[in-house]
């Protein structure tokens, strides 16, 4: 099936234009606005079908390329194109947004039109980040995304929302501007903002290290890696449910995507020299943050810390490639870590999004996120309990769920590199199970804890639809991850080749 022309532009601009339309409809005609928002987000999802079907699985080259002159004076192009790394993340974005819109359907009381518009604009901008093949275009989308997210947390967030959202903005802005300096440096030396040209540009070691660190500042904050993770628990806790879902499911992935798209191929030698740094920080995130998650009393905060730990697998998988190659000389072995990182990103997007939605379901009813305010929810909400337990198991990495595949691949890959990496990483099997299951025990199981829980009503049809869709995706990916791996294979293979060639 041939994909429509300019499909990536449609994916980017359709949601943004619809967002503007929803704004114009305003709060008074919100009934129509909701349907328009849902229709646009579903249309974007439908557009992903020809995108996936028409994707050529044999080449690492950019596909669905659009290239038009944009800013002549800067040699910047309106240049879109996707490969096997970008495609799954775009689909994930288009899959998550309708769910967020459905989940928020009539639960937003203040300025709902602006709420839906913000999420639609976000969707377009996020797809733009993953589609951009020109670094300047990438940067514009990357930064522009902060504006709607800033508003989402600040307007519809919890009590400490102002603190959380300003912290979120400044943290990510600080990281990003350093990346901008690196991109300008690359432009001045390579004469082009095209990302592929930056991949080919030979760079000296000192410069590579500086560029690597600048990229690191941007992406590590976004992932987020320990110790620059502190914005995330605040932002997650204060954000409205939809904001938490988009943050966890998509925005964190941009950090991982950035490492794969920029850090590794543009500065391969610096990445090899400094991989110990990333690996160490990832292991700290996996082990230490796992313990931190254990002691949380707020459900959202617990899931936020669990996100940090899980994203540790992404960075570990991405940067363990060098050690595998050195230890075994196997190129396919090196690819395994990257495969794991990608699967983990997609899986974490689904699972953490689902968990935040589960918390949102409870929050909508009792208006508290304290774990101690619940207990025995299964007695009053059996259907909800089923989904919550399923997603909790996926979060703990139970085989048969998507959570297992990514973690397994990364642990096996790090085993090839160094036994102790694998040992520490495998701690998550215990820690992850501990904090997730303990959460389930305290919230779901047991006797009905109080009157509030006793009065709970089970999922309505809308909530059921959202959670069921996510549950199917989690199980599908857990049982049969092959389609995802196939899509990524040529791109990851090419990426590994890029890593192995010195640019000095």
């Amino acid at each position: 099936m041939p994909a429509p022309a300019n499909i990536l532009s449609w994916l980017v601009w359709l949601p943004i234009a619809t967002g503007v339309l929803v704004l114009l409809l305003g709060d008074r005609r919100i009934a129509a606005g909701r349907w328009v928002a849902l229709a646009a987000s579903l249309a974007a999802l439908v557009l992903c079908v020809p995108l996936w079907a028409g994707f050529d699985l044999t080449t690492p080259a950019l596909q669905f390329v659009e290239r038009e002159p944009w800013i002549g004076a800067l040699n910047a192009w309106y240049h879109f194109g996707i490969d096997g790394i970008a495609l799954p993340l775009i689909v994930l974005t288009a899959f998550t947004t309708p769910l967020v819109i459905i989940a928020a359907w009539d639960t937003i009381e203040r300025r709902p039109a602006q709420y839906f518009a913000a999420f639609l604009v976000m969707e377009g901008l996020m797809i733009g980040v993953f589609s951009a093949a020109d670094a300047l275009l990438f940067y514009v989308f990357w930064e522009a995304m902060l504006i709607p997210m800033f508003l989402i947390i600040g307007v519809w967030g919890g009590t400490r929302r102002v603190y959380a959202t300003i912290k979120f903005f400044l943290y990510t802005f600080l990281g990003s501007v350093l990346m901008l300096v690196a991109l300008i440096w690359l432009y001045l030396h390579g004469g082009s903002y095209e990302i592929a040209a930056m991949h080919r540009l030979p760079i000296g070691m000192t410069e590579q290290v500086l560029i690597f660190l600048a990229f690191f500042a941007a992406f590590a904050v976004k992932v987020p890696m320990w110790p620059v993770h502190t914005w995330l628990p605040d932002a997650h806790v204060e954000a409205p449910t939809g904001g938490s879902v988009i943050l966890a499911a998509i925005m964190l992935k941009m950090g991982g995507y950035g490492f794969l798209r920029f850090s590794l191929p543009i500065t391969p030698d610096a990445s090899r020299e400094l991989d110990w740094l990333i690996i160490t920080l990832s292991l700290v995130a996996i082990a230490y943050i796992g313990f931190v998650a254990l002691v949380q009393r707020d459900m959202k905060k617990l899931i936020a810390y669990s996100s940090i730990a899980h994203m540790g697998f992404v960075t570990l998988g991405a940067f363990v490639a060098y050690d595998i190659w050195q230890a075994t000389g196997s190129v396919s072995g090196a690819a395994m870590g990257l495969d794991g990182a990608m699967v983990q990103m997609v899986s974490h997007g689904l699972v953490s999004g689902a968990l935040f939605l589960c918390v949102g379901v409870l929050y909508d009813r009792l208006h508290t996120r304290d774990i101690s305010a619940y207990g025995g929810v299964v007695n009053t909400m059996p259907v909800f309990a089923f989904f919550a337990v399923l997603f909790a198991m996926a979060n703990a990495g139970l085989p048969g769920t998507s959570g297992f595949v990514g973690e397994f691949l990364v642990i096996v890959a790090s085993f090839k590199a160094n036994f102790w990496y694998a040992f520490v990483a495998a701690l998550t099997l215990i820690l992850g199970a501990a904090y997730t299951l303990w959460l389930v025990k305290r919230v779901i199981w047991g006797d009905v804890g109080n009157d509030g829980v006793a009065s709970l009503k089970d999922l309505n049809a809308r909530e059921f639809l959202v959670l069921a869709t996510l549950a199917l995706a989690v199980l599908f990916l857990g049982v049969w991850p092959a389609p995802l791996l196939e899509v990524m294979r040529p791109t990851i293979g090419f990426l590994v080749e890029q890593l192995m060639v010195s640019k000095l």
Partner: protein
Amino acid sequence: MDAIPMVLTVADVMPAAAEVFIAGAACLLLLVEAMFGPRARDVSFFLAIATLAGAAWVTSAVAVPEPTVILYGHFVADPMGTVLKLFAYGAAAVTLLYSRDYLIRRELLRGEYLVLALFAVLGIQVIVSAGSLLTLYLGIEIMSLSLYAMVAFDREDGIAAEAAMKYFVLGAIASGALLYGISILYGVTGTILLEGVAAAIGQSEAGGVGMLLGLAFIVVGVAFKFGAVPFHMWLPDVYHGAPTPVTLFVGSAPKIASFALAMRLLAEGLGGAVDAWQDMLIVLAALSMIVGNVVAIAQTNIKRMLAYSTISHVGFILLGVLAGNPAGYQAAMFYTLTYVIMTTGAFGVVLWLSRKGFEADALDDYKGLNRRNPWFAFVMLLMMFGLAGVPPTVGFWAKLQVIAAILDVGLTWLAALAVLMSVIGAYYYLRIVKLMYFDEPTVTGPVEAKIGVRVMLSLNGLAILVLGLYPGMLLGLCAQVLR
């Protein structure tokens, strides 16, 4: 020296037609005011706007593709000048449009106000087209004297009078410093023509201590007119004390003049001594960015906050100038023009929110603006993110260009400082957005404005977004006129 022709023909002064036109129209306006008094208020206002539009037409009509020198070298007409003048007319006209209701409400809209504004524009024109040190000085004085009077225009207002006094005294000192520098430079090079100065500097014997001394005074003068740290003391008081329309006026078109002053003096006249003034400008730029951004955080008055924000933006403009190459000058020009667009819009919102007996200058007045008027809250949001330099607004491209310019000359540490300061700066712009969007309004009821102001303000906001999405044209224009 060539023989000086004694008779000037009309063709000889044609490139200066726009200056003549504005000067004539301003005098005419003075007559209208004198004859009809306050009754002719609307006519005067219309005439002032028409004058600026007419000047734009004349400037375009006499525009020259290549630099042309007339009046014995004292006046230069070139493409850069044409573009800067057109932007200055535009900024002045939009400023007057925004100010109209406010001025009428406070009974300040008198012919003299408009005449002063036109004379300030005349001063800007003269600075932009200056070919000699004396023309430059003349332009500065025409502009500054008009501005001093405008700041003091509200006679009843003690704070405004104090601000005008400070502005005048400090401005006079700066003018003195500049004039002293000019006289030293004249002594060293033997000419007051910028072209001659440039030629003399090209020959090494003109260098040395004398030249450096003159240069230092000139840089002080330029820094004062820009409001760069440590010569910024007047700026917050003037911005704060002056009636808001005057603050808007001082903050917009004269910035173009400051840029032109730096270009004519430093880039063209003293371009050969770039190594000498680059270090001075680095210090000024770094201090301006640091002090401006950090002190702005502590402000509770939006006019004062925007004053410190101006200081920090001056630091960024100086980054482009100090690069000392065409790419840097283009970046500085782009920054200046876009900054004028953004700051005009921001003060436009301040003016639009002000009512009779109520100045919307406390930050708390912006609480819950999104509730009261979502569209103009959004316009203000665009201004704030634009000033913070966040894409997709045009402010991002301005910062990108100046940072690229200094990276290109190897000043990586300064580029890093600049981006870090822009992060600090983001905080106080975000605070305005926070007040507008996250807080509940303390004042209720919608805000009224005339249709003209609403349209203009909307266009102003959209310009920031459209130029942000497609900056190519303006970037190309800057590149074309500053090769």
